[in-house]
């Protein structure tokens, strides 16, 4: 019997697509989201399609005071936890509005890192589990057009790498997922280049493969590894003058 999968940010397009892929392989699913009950159509859909058990659980990534209680109250301690929580924000507007900038920083770093810390401890104690964090290529280097979001993702990427290092000998696998552009609710207002834009299902399948293959870090689509290598290797003296 494949283990149970918890999706944090269960309404996210990538998160839901990932739920479908794991449910199709027979995993029971827990969808954790704000206003979780509004996901009942998705719950039924997953159950009808794949005959798996699907639970909805109320979860707010920013309510860190209750994260431990949240994890303890879950119907079952999951074998795999996937964090798809994120907020893109609006760089230009957020530069002028500190409280919304802070919201972006907290939603992409503080909340996700906090809840995964809780699962790290539980998995470590149990001696098994997989932790998947969806970060972003935006965290690979800060750029004028999205450094608020990017810096929080950079923090999250670093957190995941540290967590992996800590848990490597404890039987717990940590996977960092770095998508480039993905066609989701988050980006539906943007005009994305088709050749570089993945569908949520592609990300989901890549996550499934990487979980099975115990990979450390993956880029989706893989071409983003090359793009980010180039972007990271531009000397700062030049980089700071570029419009990216």
């Amino acid at each position, binding site marked *: 019997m494949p283990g149970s999968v918890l999706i944090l940010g269960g309404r996210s397009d990538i998160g839901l697509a990932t739920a479908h892929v794991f449910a199709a392989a027979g995993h029971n699913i827990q969808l954790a989201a704000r206003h979780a009950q509004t996901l009942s159509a998705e719950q*039924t*859909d997953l159950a*009808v399609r794949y005959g798996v058990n699907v639970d909805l659980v109320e979860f707010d990534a920013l309510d860190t005071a209750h994260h431990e209680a949240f994890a303890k109250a879950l119907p079952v301690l999951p074998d795999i936890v996937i964090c798809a929580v994120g907020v893109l924000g609006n760089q230009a507007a957020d530069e002028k509005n500190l409280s919304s900038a802070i919201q972006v920083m907290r939603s992409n770093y503080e909340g996700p890192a906090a809840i995964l810390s809780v699962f790290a401890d539980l998995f470590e104690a149990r001696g098994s589990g997989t932790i998947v964090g969806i970060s972003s290529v935006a965290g690979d280097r800060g750029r004028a057009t999205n450094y608020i979001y990017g810096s929080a993702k950079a923090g999250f990427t670093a957190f995941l790498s540290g967590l992996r290092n800590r848990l490597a000998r404890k039987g717990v696998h940590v996977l960092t997922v770095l998508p480039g552009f993905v066609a989701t609710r988050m980006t539906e207002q943007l005009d994305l280049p088709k050749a570089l834009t993945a569908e949520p299902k592609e990300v989901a399948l890549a996550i499934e493969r990487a979980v099975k293959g115990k990979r450390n870090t993956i880029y989706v689509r893989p071409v983003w590894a090359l793009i980010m290598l180039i972007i990271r290797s531009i000397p700062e003296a030049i980089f700071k003058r570029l419009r990216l």
Partner: protein
Amino acid sequence: MILSGWGNFPRLDACLLRPRNLGDLRLALSRGPLIARGNGRAYGDSAINPAQTIDMRSFNRMCAFDSTSGQLIAEAGVLLADIISVFLPRGWFPAVTPGTKFVTLGGMIAADVHGKNHHCDGSIRNFVDWIEILDGNGNTRKCSREEDPSLFEFTIGGMGLTGVILRAAIRLRPVESGYIAQDLRPAATLSDAIRLFDENPTASYSVAWIDCLARGQKMGRSLVMFGEHATRADLPAERRDKPFSIPARRAKSFPFDAPSFVLNPWSLALFNEAYYRNGRRRAGRSLLDWDAYFYPLDSIHDWNRLYGRKGFAQFQCVLPLASSDLGMRVLLDTISKSGQDSFLAVLKRFGAEGGGLSFPMEGYSLALDFPIHRNTIDLLKRLDSIVLDFGGRFYLAKDARMSADVFSRSEQRRAAFLDTRTKEGWRSHFTSAQSERLGI
């Protein structure tokens, strides 16, 4: 953005919206007339409204399945491909399927699709238990044969012109395997093909491919294909314990619009000749998997681009039984004399007529593809008048250019449809480029 149907003709500048919930959908409705769009597999302009085209593919959840009756309740944007991948492993197959699995439930109901089993089972209408629809006032209405039967009748085959289908209950059929036992029979002439259909009225599936390029004596030569769902016992021993799994086919994509010389009279002639000869050699019984049997074109994604930038037009008509043999011969003769050749020509026997504005009627249906050239539209007009002469009608899901006049002469039910549309207020909320063109 530029939007078109599967034939890439016509291309219209349209505003495409993709609502995620009922609230978004109601908002669009309050702004003005709209048309629902499924997966865009209708060939022409049925699923385009320049002001508001509503992509329904986010409404794609399955709601319930009853494993005793085979009834599936699902949202309109669910793809047939998903229905098959979920339910075939449990022993259920769509009761009616068009020649592609990349269609939505809503699109299948709105076009009242028919399959190779129309002569036995009728169109999908016969397997729809109820429909939930969003009406012009933004209210949801459930309709069935008992409840609001007029809405039910007109919605099936109504091409999106009665409201937005939100959910529906359809019945699947139980099958023992994912394979079809095919019997392939060459027919030297059109009349032979028709005789083969007539002699095999109980075959579950039947369809013929016609070599449109064969002239004179050979005119109408075809390959007639009969099929039955294979039972477990029909399968070779090594497949019997996994009757629903089939060998994986790798999808290929047609990556660019082909230059127009790719499909020319010579390449077509070669293709048709080879196809016919090869078919004659393979004549007889064979076992095909469901994907190869029902959806041969689906393994080449975007095959429509083979026809190049100008796109192509489908032409599908049905002639009443009595005039079919003669009428089809006149159609084929006109095509072969025009020098404009069809790549795919499919002949199908239909059973009894359904209701509403549904396309099928008892008789024979012919479907053709024409790449758009200078003279294509003229040829199609000539075919229109032949169909009218023989008392036939046209399939709206394939139509991209018929005139309002031809439509009204082919369709006695038009007046009743239009009356109901006006009376119910559908006409001021649900319109497509096609409905405007046809004046309905």
